[in-house]
């Protein structure tokens, strides 16, 4: 059985207990003021985003089963880790996802249809981070993007855009990766470079318990957040199913990064309720008892309980549910209307500058296809 809740004896930061009450322990004390500053609309937005992205996830999984996508990558169960941390980032920050961060993309302004197009086989990503709230492309080679994020953060330093003391213009990078990625050399190298250059950067590790079928306990004999200490990077472990903890801890560490205090690591303990992808069968490697224990710790119901304690009524939750249905219906409608990619896509952007082989092969393909007299 997977035990991804390895701790060093320290309690993970939790601001919201599983029954939806605000906690008041010492571990969370330094973060509580970030929550205190949130207004009602912001608090509602967290719930709205978690519910909408889960409904999107369900719709996309159904579309995949109906043949509209080759693959689906569910994010169910990880909404709090993603929504809280994404809201902690400022407009000018850059976010580097792995490939399950649908909520983060949505919050930064990515049209979720881009994710559908990627998993449908129409694109390899294809969005422009400059137009999607600095939300970068998904990276499928596990851990590779942690180095891109670190390099980007080095560029922020070269530009003098961190540590000036101006919180409205100082920039930071946050990179999302999973427990499996921590075994990759690139993640260790990213830690080395980040520590060496003291990059303005937060490493946001979603420990969802499983690297496809291999539990965290096989990947690591030590709590993952303790690894970074060996690289000279401070770290903290949080309850990843607590959206307020995810928000507050990410906000603090991003503030530190922007203000020139260097990199840090956040390990969010969460759980992948769904399969790794639509091609996976988690019943082969994990128990129903484990699954049920995490469903009982569902991040959305916890947060709904909190909002109801605060006096939020049925009308709000009904409105959110309606909005989620609308988003799902819109995705379904636009997915069914998608056309296949142009064959020009084979050649047009392999290089930025003119390339004789691309020109020749594009021309050859056009002639070959036209040789069928339009019947192909």
């Amino acid at each position, binding site marked *: 059985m997977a035990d991804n809740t390895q701790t060093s004896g320290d309690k993970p930061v939790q601001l919201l207990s599983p029954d939806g009450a605000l906690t008041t322990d010492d571990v969370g004390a330094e973060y509580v003021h970030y929550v205190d500053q949130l207004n009602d609309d912001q608090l509602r937005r967290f719930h709205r985003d978690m519910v909408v992205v889960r409904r999107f996830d369900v719709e996309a999984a159904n579309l995949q089963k109906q043949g509209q996508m080759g693959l689906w990558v569910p994010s169910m169960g990880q909404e709090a880790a993603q929504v809280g941390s994404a809201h902690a980032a400022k407009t000018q920050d850059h976010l580097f996802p792995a490939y399950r961060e649908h909520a983060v993309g949505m919050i930064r302004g990515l049209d979720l249809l881009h994710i559908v197009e990627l998993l449908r086989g129409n694109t390899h990503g294809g969005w422009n981070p*400059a137009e999607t709230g600095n939300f970068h492309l998904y990276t499928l080679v596990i851990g590779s993007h942690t*180095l891109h994020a670190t390099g980007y953060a080095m560029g922020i330093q070269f530009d003098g855009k961190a540590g000036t003391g101006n919180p409205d213009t100082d920039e930071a990078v946050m990179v999302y990766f999973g427990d499996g990625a921590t075994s990759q050399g690139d993640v260790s190298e990213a830690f080395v470079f980040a520590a060496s250059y003291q990059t303005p950067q937060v490493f946001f590790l979603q420990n969802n318990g499983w690297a496809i079928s291999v539990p965290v306990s096989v990947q690591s004999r030590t709590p993952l957040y303790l690894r970074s200490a060996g690289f000279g990077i401070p770290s903290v472990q949080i309850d990843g199913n607590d959206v307020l903890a995810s928000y507050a801890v990410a906000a603090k560490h991003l503030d530190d990064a922007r203000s020139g205090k260097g990199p840090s690591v956040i390990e969010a303990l969460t759980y992948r309720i769904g399969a790794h992808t639509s091609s996976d069968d988690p019943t082969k490697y994990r128990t129903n008892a484990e699954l049920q224990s995490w469903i009982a710790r569902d991040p959305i119901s916890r947060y709904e309980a909190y909002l109801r304690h605060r006096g939020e009524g049925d009308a709000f939750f009904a409105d959110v549910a309606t909005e989620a249905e609308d988003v799902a219906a819109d995705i379904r409608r636009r997915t069914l209307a998608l056309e296949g990619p142009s064959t020009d896509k084979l050649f*047009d952007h392999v290089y930025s500058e003119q390339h004789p082989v691309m020109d020749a092969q594009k021309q050859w393909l056009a002639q070959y296809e036209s040789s069928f007299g339009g019947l192909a």
Partner: protein
Amino acid sequence: MSEQDTSPAWAETLPEAGDGRASRSAATDIVELPLAKALNAGLRKALAGDPKVLLMGEDIGPLGGVFRVTEGLQAEFGRRVMDTPLAESGIVGTAIGLAMRGYRPVCEIQFDGFIFPGFDQITTQLAKMTNRHEGQVQMPVVIRVPYGGHIGAVEHHQESPEAYFAHTPGLRLVSPSTPHDAYWMIQEAIASNDPVMFFEPKSRYWHKGPVDLNFNQSSLHASKVVRTGTEVTVVGHGAMVNVLLQAAEIAQGEGTSIEVIDLRSLSPIDYEPLLASVQKTGRLVIASEAPGFASLPSEIAATVTERLFYSLEAPVLRVTGFDAPFPPAKLETIYLPDADRVLEAVDRALAY
């Protein structure tokens, strides 16, 4: 593409080519430099001309790199010349992030055989990043690789890994053979908005040659006839060009006329000068230090055979390293093609 289009942007600060020709004197414009120093001068020019150019690599700061190619540059350009941690994947991976931010990183891989920890970042990330973004993000990254044998070094220090990268769409590969080309091609590679693998013939680092600082007569991806002849065409790149010129000289003494082509660009390959030459000679020998199986010579042989089947008087022949690991240094002169091995193939081609 015109000459103008392929020159780096900062070359515009130099005298116009026309003016240069008019006022040029050998004493002022043409300098004798070893290839490594020519690269150093080219890197300095690029750093001075564009504040976005960065150098990164192992030991390239105060030491100036293990081959001293970056000597003095950190003193001149400060933190823009970065001694990185000892991690090739980290160097290339962070260079990608810097390029996303608008920088033009030039990475030094210390030795050819040490590029493989960075192979994943080069082939799955750097090469595909522009394509993945559908052209909306560019990757002006140069990977400098001192490559090849003839220096008597230990394992992993004398290899020729070009073919691995030539097989990867999205990369451009070039390799200068002379100090003049080294000076200009490094600047053109840095000016390119695509990733460029820059293979430096390390056995030629210390050989001097003339460098015309004002006039670049070629473009980055053009191959070049460097010696004219009529009976057999021989082609190669980097350090092999000098071997081919030696072979041509020996052959001339024996009454055989060899045309020598310096490939210069390994991807894309500029075939026109090569095809024109083979149409004339009807015979082609391709030489490379790398193992011959699934190699650049194999690729060129296939293409020339497809394009010039009826012009060939003999099969296209390859002269390469053996399909065995690069040997301990005491055997390298046996492993690496020399002028005699090239001439053996020339004789076979002429025997058809």
